[in-house]
């Protein structure tokens, strides 16, 4: 079932969608424009150009939506048309006819044969000027955006219903390397770029789906440009259908079963919504703008959730860690990839502009992404990784040094001192023996600070007990709440958790106020540590300041957490004060963690 789903998502659907799209686009590209592609409307007492079809004769002659018709066959619409019996207002139904009658001095004709009409309105425009004369040619003069009057010959033969007329305006549309060619280029280059890993390892799984989702919005442009019913249906369905496989690929990266299910449903609903919007809402553009926006959301919503670098996020935290530079860089890759099909959808929202312009947004976007990744993101990630590794090595070296010094004091000075105590005892010099015992106790304390032996022998829990006991005696009331298993964790994790607790407690004693509470919860699958105090809390922005001024406590804790792949949050405690929280999940979760000499199977045997 799972592998079937994967095949479905990875190959079958995207390839089928793209193949259908390319074929339909090639056919559409090769077929001539069905009419001159001019749609007029009556607005605010003016006859205006409502829309112009892609590649149509009208578009080629420079008519743009919004242009105002100032003269028709030498007459000035609308006012003077009233006197000319040849011009009538044609409206599609009674309501609109009534409206028309009340809104102007129009002679309304109820039935108009489609034959011979000079201009027509598609259903979404309320009415248009209609010339009922059996005239071969008339001249349309209009004012363009700059206010320059321009003239254009309109042939009634170019209109629907009279397609058989031989003198239709079949101006040959000069071929432009429009969305079809750029779509194919994006498909092939994208497949190579993503598949070769140049777009980042996180996107490898989208090798097929990402280029398809990006290319299909361009490839459908030639299909939907004439806005016939069939074309609109095909185009409206193809675009969201091409986004879905990419959405499924992104879903694989989303953490949490609940979130995954929710986000998946959202993507599906968006896809349905996109198709519905394009089909049901009349529009002057290739697809309805809402259709394009919703289609963009199909890929973007799961991509956004897939890009989140953090498994969890604490609200109001001042310091948060949990991501390596590469993970962050991969998140950026996923986020950028999630936006790419949406940018491609912008092409679909353009009205009647020459082809090549419509592909600019996606081309500029791809170029920007390439430049940003090549010259900024990747080098930054490399730099940060190197710095992190060096920092961790230094921290490890410092730990090793402290452990070595502690071992030296323990093995050498402390043991000699032990024997000295014995000799003094045997000699009956109890006063000096006690003095030597005092020195031994101080040396032990130094060893404990350098590297607490309890941590190596007994793990974090007992070490925290020792630490809290000590602080309780030295610096005021500190309480420890412990729960969980007595299992052992990997050495580096134990050391990191202990050091974070040590630093947080030192801060709490120094800057905070009682009650200071340490909560430690240990399970085979991970640990959680919380250190609370009821002091004044961190000043706003203290965390950022720490990174700059080198107030190393906070930075050090964050480093420790990052080094073991844990999440550290430092923020306000509910009810006042500061809360430092460290969460570490065992990446081998499920397997019996810990340094137990007996494997889990052997224990299971013993339980029988």
């Amino acid at each position, binding site marked *: 079932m799972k592998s079937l789903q994967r095949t479905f998502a990875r190959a079958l659907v995207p390839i089928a969608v793209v193949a259908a799209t390319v074929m339909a686009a090639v056919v559409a590209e090769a077929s001539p424009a069905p009419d001159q592609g001019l749609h007029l409307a009556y607005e605010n007492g003016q006859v205006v150009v409502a829309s112009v079809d892609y590649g149509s004769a009208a578009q080629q002659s420079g008519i743009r939506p919004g242009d105002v018709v100032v003269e028709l066959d030498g007459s000035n619409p609308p006012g003077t048309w009233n006197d000319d019996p040849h011009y009538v207002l044609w409206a599609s139904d009674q309501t609109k006819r009534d409206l028309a009658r009340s809104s102007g001095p129009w002679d309304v004709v109820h039935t108009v044969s489609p034959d011979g009409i000079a201009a027509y309105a598609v259903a979404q425009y309320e009415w248009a000027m209609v010339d009922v004369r059996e005239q071969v040619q008339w001249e349309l003069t209009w004012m363009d955006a700059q206010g320059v009057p321009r003239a254009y010959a309109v042939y009634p033969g170019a209109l629907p219903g009279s397609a058989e007329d031989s003198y239709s305006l079949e101006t040959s549309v000069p071929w432009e390397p429009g969305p079809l060619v750029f779509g194919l280029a994006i498909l092939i280059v994208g497949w190579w770029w993503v598949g070769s890993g140049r777009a980042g390892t996180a996107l490898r799984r989208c090798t097929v789906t990402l280029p398809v989702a990006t290319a299909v919005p361009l490839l459908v442009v030639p299909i939907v440009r004439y806005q016939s019913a069939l074309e609109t249906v095909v185009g409206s369905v193809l675009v969201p259908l091409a986004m879905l496989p990419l959405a499924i690929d992104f879903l694989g990266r989303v953490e949490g079963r609940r979130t995954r299910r929710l986000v998946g449903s959202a993507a599906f609903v968006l896809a349905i919504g996109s198709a519905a919007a394009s089909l049901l809402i009349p529009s002057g553009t290739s697809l309805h703008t809402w259709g394009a926006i919703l289609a963009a959301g199909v890929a973007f919503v799961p991509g956004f959730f897939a890009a989140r670098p953090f498994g969890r996020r604490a609200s109001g935290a001042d310091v948060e860690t949990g991501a390596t530079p590469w993970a962050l860089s991969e998140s950026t890759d996923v986020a950028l990839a999630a936006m790419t099909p949406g940018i491609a959808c912008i092409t679909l929202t353009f009205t009647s502009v020459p082809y090549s312009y419509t592909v600019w947004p996606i081309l500029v976007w791809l170029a920007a992404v390439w430049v940003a990744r090549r010259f900024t993101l990747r080098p930054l990630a490399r730099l940060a990784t190197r710095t992190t590794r060096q920092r961790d090595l230094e921290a490890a070296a410092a730990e090793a040094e402290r452990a070595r010094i502690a071992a030296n004091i*323990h*093995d050498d000075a*402390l*043991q*000699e*001192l*032990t*024997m000295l*105590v*014995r000799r003094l*005892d*045997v000699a009956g010099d109890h006063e000096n023996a006690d003095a*030597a*015992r005092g020195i*031994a*106790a101080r040396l*032990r304390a130094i060893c*404990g600070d350098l590297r607490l*032996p*309890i941590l*190596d*022998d*007994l793990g974090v829990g*007992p*070490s925290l*007990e*020792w630490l809290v*006991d000590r602080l309780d005696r030295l610096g005021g009331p500190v309480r420890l709440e*412990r*729960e*969980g*298993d*007595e*299992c*052992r964790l990997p050495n580096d994790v134990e050391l990191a958790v202990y050091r974070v607790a040590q630093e947080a407690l030192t801060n709490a004693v120094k800057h905070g106020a009682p009650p200071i509470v340490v909560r430690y919860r240990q399970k*085979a699958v991970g640990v959680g540590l919380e250190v609370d105090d009821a002091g004044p809390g961190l000043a706003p922005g203290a965390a950022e300041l720490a990174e700059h001024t080198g107030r190393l406590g906070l930075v050090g804790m964050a480093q420790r957490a990052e080094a073991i792949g844990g999440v550290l949050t430092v923020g306000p405690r509910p009810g006042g004060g500061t809360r430092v929280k460290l969460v570490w999940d065992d990446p081998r979760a499920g397997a*019996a963690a*810990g340094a*137990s*000499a*007996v494997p889990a199977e*052997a*224990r*299971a045997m*013993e*339980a*029988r």
Partner: protein
Amino acid sequence: MTDSPVPIRVAIVDDHPVVREGTAALLDGQPGLRMVGTAASLDEAAPLLDPSAVDVLLLDIRLGADSGLSVLRGGAPKPAIVVLTAYDYPQYATAALRLGASGFVVKTAPIAELVDAIRRAASGGLAFGCKPDLSAPAPLTRRELDVVRLIVDGRSNDEIGAELGIASKTVEAHLRRLFDRLGLQSRTELATRALREGWLEVP
């Protein structure tokens, strides 16, 4: 002072030569004690773990990179073990008690205390120079306590299941969870710990 006709056979595991030999020399001079072996590492200590050759084993915790406590963890029969360490941390004492040590003596303690601990350990008693902290007993559910009580009686899973009216599979699951939670490895360890820490005395 007990006048045992047979001297107590004592061995010591400590990686520091001065302490090892010094302690051995001091103890050898004590009446009723006889040093039968020394070891500087856990590897060398293997022959000293034979209860037929050694009565009381003095064990240091920090042994180079190893932890002496790992000796306590094994399930095989061992001599009575007195932990002898430079650290007077109650956490060590607690761990030693939980893992089945008979005594816990800090190295800087007077020699008499060590001799006393050895004698008590040899006679099956406990001697902790540093008080173990048992204030936080292992939290067990009622059902788990029932199971542990019957384990202490030496019953099998089937018998326990029949007694408590649950499936023996359920008993097994309870035990497995307890082993995981408490870091135990055998039923014997569980029974020993329950008795030592007095879990069953809880009303």
